[in-house]
């Protein structure tokens, strides 16, 4: 039983993957992309119609929370998983992206494609502003400062005029269509494809980074920051980079989110969401892209699926977290064995 519980699917999969030659790999990846592209249609067939969620339509759930959570969890994974920094205020970057688009579109008539780079830019700038002082600190101090930053962004949005205070900003336009592809309430499916493209780009980016210098630097920092510093890694710069890249992903998710839901308000960006995204990362398997995607997909989907429980929904969700972490502390798909830190006297 315990052998089954501790089975490392990640290593198993990596073993198969390394045995394949290049064409097989390309075909497999294309197949995966095709399957994710078909996901919006999944609920329409007989045997898979159980995927339908009780309240919101399945396709809407697929965009938010599932798609958004996967995207944000991937972004947070760069910070928490790759360089080992605990960020409890990741939602702030999402909020900054969302508010950037909301303000630019309602006041200046920008469309979502134009605000996307601006939203990412603002998120990155705030990442630098927060990161420069905060990243000099270690471990749990960073956690509390990022937590505070998340709350500050929400409180500022709640109290200044341009963000509409507690009522938020209504009437955010959907992105304009192109090549006959329309984005509005009737075509939620198309939003899913935007998110999917962003997710694929993020995965590609992370994979490129991981095998190059920044990835190695992050790995070194995560395993032992002092040693990394001694080996000549400029830890502050690389930590800042991971922070800023994570922020950019969050900002991009925010812009798309705002253009999808059309109304945003401060209570969408509560601390609980930051925690939920972090839970996605840890639940799936810190540092492992597939684990993070699986974790985010499940943790976003489960609360929607069990909406019929109404009152006990959150309670069940909490129980799922406790039980899962007790059974598999390394997450559903843990990172590769060789990447694990051998923690001396770990607690």
């Amino acid at each position: 039983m315990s052998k089954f519980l501790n089975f490392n699917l990640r290593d198993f999969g990596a073993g198969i993957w390394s045995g394949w030659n290049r064409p097989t790999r390309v075909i497999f990846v294309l197949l995966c992309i095709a399957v994710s592209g078909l996901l919006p249609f999944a609920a329409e067939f007989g045997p898979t119609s159980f995927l339908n969620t009780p309240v919101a339509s399945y396709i809407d759930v697929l965009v938010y929370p599932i798609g958004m959570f996967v995207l944000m969890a991937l972004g947070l994974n760069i910070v928490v998983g790759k360089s080992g920094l605990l960020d409890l205020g990741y939602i702030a970057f999402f909020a900054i992206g969302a508010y950037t688009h909301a303000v630019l579109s309602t006041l200046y008539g920008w469309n979502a494609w134009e605000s996307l780079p601006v939203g990412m830019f603002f998120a990155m700038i705030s990442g630098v502003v927060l990161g420069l002082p905060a990243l000099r600190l270690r471990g749990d101090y960073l956690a509390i400062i990022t937590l505070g930053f998340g709350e500050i962004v929400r409180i500022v949005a709640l109290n200044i005029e341009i963000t509409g205070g507690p009522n938020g900003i209504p009437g955010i336009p959907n992105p304009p269509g192109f090549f006959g592809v329309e984005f509005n309430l009737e075509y939620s499916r198309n939003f899913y494809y935007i998110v999917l493209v962003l997710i694929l780009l993020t995965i590609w980016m992370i994979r490129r980074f991981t095998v190059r210098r920044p990835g190695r630097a992050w790995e070194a920092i995560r395993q032992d920051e002092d040693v990394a510093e001694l080996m000549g890694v400029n830890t502050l710069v690389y930590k800042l980079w991971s922070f800023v890249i994570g922020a950019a992903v969050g900002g991009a998710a925010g812009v798309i989110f705002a253009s999808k839901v059309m109304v945003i308000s401060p209570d969408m960006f509560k601390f609980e969401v930051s925690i939920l995204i972090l839970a996605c990362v840890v639940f799936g398997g810190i540092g492992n892209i597939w684990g993070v995607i699986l974790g985010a997909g499940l943790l976003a989907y489960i609360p929607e699926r069990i909406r019929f429980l109404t009152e006990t929904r959150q309670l069940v969700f909490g129980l799922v977290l406790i039980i899962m972490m007790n059974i598999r502390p390394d997450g559903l798909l843990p990172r590769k064995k060789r990447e694990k830190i051998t923690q001396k006297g770990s607690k």
Partner: protein
Amino acid sequence: MNFSVVATEFPSLLLQGLALGLIYALVSLGYTMVYGVLRLINFANSEVFMIGTFATLYVQVNILGFTNTSEPIRGFRLVYSLALCLVVSMLVSALVAVLVELVAYRRLRAKGANRLASLISAIGVSIVLMEWVGLLTGSRPRSGARLMEKSSLFEIGGANFRVDTVLAIVLPVIIFLVLNRFVTKTRLGKSIRAVSMSEENSKLMGININRVITLTFIIGGLTTGAAAFLFMTVYENTTFTIGFNMGIAAFTAAVLGGIGNLRGAFYGGIALGLLEQFASAIIGSEWKAVTVFVVLVLVLLFKPNGLFGEAVQQTRT
């Protein structure tokens, strides 16, 4: 910006800040003690506080039979009633804290899991406790009973020393003095400090690590329970989500003072309470949290280990 308030109401703000700050200090012990030995943020401590407030409420309403319209009592009966509330709140909170340790931390520790895994399981416990109490109370806020007449004892420069305010200042100070003595002088207290310095060496010295960890959770639970009692006495209301803000404030207080350190929790709590009171008077209560975090960032920039430093000079991530 309204600085004239400070000039006119300085003593009163000082008093209110002190009372609030000492409640924060008691809760932040639940974070700082556990952090000292485990190097983990005890995320579920906020719910320990929440359950403490409901335990106090339960004793007030269901055992002693008070309502918020009942006649205030005095004399020996008042002391006895308050003491009963305090003791029950402390014991229930300590029990919950021990349960949290058993459910969220012990198994994971035995497996040598990473710190984030424990964090998530503690968050899970926190959600479960919060939702459970939410179900029991129908998610409605509850107002507590007023046991005593909150008469003014004396007044200094416009600061009104009411019975409950004085209690909220005196009780935490006593608890801190007792705890300080316990940690520095007794065998058990010394074993707590030993574990916080080095778990491996403590093991070699024959210290039962699990017992020490349970003990720190009990102490954290007891002080958090005392804080919950004081909170109910002074502010007289609670709801199932009350732990969240209190938890963030208390954890901030612990970091501000220097986490893992008794004195740090004490002074950090006071500093935070004063800061919040003055910030809400000067800038407005909606900017209170922002001010607190800006000050926290500044303090950590210049004193990275908090105002009073960590208990042990080690910077483990």
